[in-house]
């Protein structure tokens, strides 16, 4: 029964997601929804790291590294598609480096370290002008070329960019689901729940934590690379902006930590409420929902929205039927 409900909900969601471009949305709305989907990806990537017990306040670092990496590679005449992958690898590397800090720091102090790390990269982007273009950033980033087998226009506000963000989110969700059911997911959960106990069972926590950082950083950086190829500029204060650290954190905790669909759902909901309902009427307060959502979660909803569902979603490693 439950399974059918989920499949039904999935189909409805898929239909809703496929419809907007077909029904002739205004490009601005398409752009908004594409961005919301990218935030969904970012929130899911953030949640992957949280699944391994590591709370990041610095995902802007990974997003921005991906954005700069992809922009530089693209400007260096790599195919934009490969450039995005290179940016992803740069983000994974950058995330792995700060993951090393988890050997010494935990919880709030690791979170502070990631916060500082994102500020460091923002500072580097500001100051290393020869490479990053300094505060003005880089312009003239080429658009994503149509694929031979998929002739779509992927620039901002087009159906192509919408489908691309959607496909990317679905791929990351599928990978996340796969990871939860694999050895990786088992190790991540063990490290998260009781690191010491896990290590008594032969699990060396550090490599798993670094791996979680690298994976999460990789997906976030891919999102960054996609983003710059849609907006076609990159600036330190744009891509290393604290919002790319705060928003995935808000969305994932509000949607439900460690759940598969919660973060992406909350990302879509919060972002669209903020941009569609608040931005047009009270623009200065359009970020209000994020701050309020965070406060509500911390004080009243320890499990996020997913905690409100009637019964907890089954853990991926349930014993029966496997």
């Amino acid at each position, binding site marked *: 029964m439950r399974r059918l409900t989920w499949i039904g909900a999935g189909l409805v969601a898929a239909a809703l997601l496929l419809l907007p471009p077909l029904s002739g949305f205004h490009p601005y709305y398409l752009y908004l929804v594409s961005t919301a989907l990218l935030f969904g990806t970012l929130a899911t990537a953030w949640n992957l790291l949280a699944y391994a017990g590591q709370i990041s306040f610095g995902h802007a670092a990974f997003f921005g590294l991906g954005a700069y990496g992809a922009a530089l590679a693209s400007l260096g005449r790599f195919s934009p598609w490969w450039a995005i992958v290179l940016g992803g690898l740069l983000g994974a590397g950058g995330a792995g480096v700060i993951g090393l800090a988890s050997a010494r720091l935990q919880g709030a102090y690791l979170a*502070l370290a990631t916060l500082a*790390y994102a*500020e460091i990269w923002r500072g580097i982007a500001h100051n290393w002008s020869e490479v990053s273009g300094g505060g003005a950033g880089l312009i003239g980033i080429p658009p994503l070329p149509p694929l031979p087998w998929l002739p779509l226009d992927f620039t901002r506000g087009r159906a192509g960019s919408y489908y691309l963000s959607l496909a990317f989110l679905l791929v990351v969700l599928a990978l996340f689901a796969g990871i939860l059911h694999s050895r990786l997911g088992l190790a991540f959960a063990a490290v998260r729940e009781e690191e010491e106990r896990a290590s008594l069972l032969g699990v060396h926590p550090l490599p798993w934590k670094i791996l979680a950082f690298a994976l999460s950083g990789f997906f976030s950086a891919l999102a960054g690379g996609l983003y710059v190829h849609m907006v076609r500029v990159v600036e330190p204060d744009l891509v290393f902006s*604290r919002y790319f650290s705060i928003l995935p954190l808000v969305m994932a905790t509000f949607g439900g930590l460690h759940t598969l669909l919660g973060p992406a759902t909350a990302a879509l909901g919060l972002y669209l409420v903020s941009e569609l309902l608040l931005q047009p009427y009270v623009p200065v307060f359009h970020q209000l929902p994020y701050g309020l959502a*965070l406060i509500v979660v911390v004080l009243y909803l320890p499990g996020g929205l997913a905690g409100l569902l009637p019964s907890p979603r089954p853990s991926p490693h349930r014993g029966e039927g496997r």
Partner: protein
Amino acid sequence: MSLTTLAQTLASGALLGCFYTLMALAFSMVLSVTRALNLAHGDLIILGGYLGYWFWSGSGLHPLLLVPVAGAALLPLALLWQWLFNRLPEPKELSSLVLTFGLSLLLQNIMLALWRGEYRLIASESLTGSIRLGGLRLNQGRLIVAAAALAAVGGLYLALTRTRWGRAVRATSLDREAAALLGINVDQATRTTFLLALALSGGAGVLFATLHYLYPAGGIELTLLAIVLTIWAGVGRLRSVLVAGVLLGVIEALTVAWSGPRWRELVVALLLLASLLARSGGLAGGRSH
């Protein structure tokens, strides 16, 4: 860099350090009593600065007179902060960080709404002159800020070490339950700590606004500075905070003198990361002394 300029830079950094000390004390007071990290600390200071600017541009009063006014203006927020912090789930360090990340966002939005993201400075003429001291020329504004900050720090030191209230606050921060068992009114101690800490933040904001341009997103850097100082000095150790604050002010001044102001934020973030890694026991580690 000539010797005089170096001395000049050191002196001016040390003066700035006195301000940092005041700011960090307000942060670590809340931390020691509640075990909560207030990421919105810097935003509160900026808010105090904007309020000070607002009063100043409206009244033309001397900025020093506006320090207590801005401090008082933040008192209602202190009660809100305490109400929120009382409800934090465990682990408090982490949940407070998440909560105040949200509060910081809200404060920035409010400031954006009220002051439209414009850069503001309390450019009072009474602060612009400079004073010769030996071979050094010290900016009068900085001297006044440092003196005001030191006065506040000194007053706080006396209050914490010499009064009943101070004993209650120190006992509460050492061990809440034990303090309550000894008949200390820990709730009252906590509330007054919040009130005092936010009043100090608001006042510090006015001082800050006479030195630096305000902008709504500028708070995070102050928060990071406060955390660095708290790591260096340990929680609740006033004299070490002063030493650390002056050191940090000097480091900042040297950075700016050598490589320009663009490097300031980067250096602050690097200092924070390095300090966290070097002192991996957590901030409360300093409390056992």
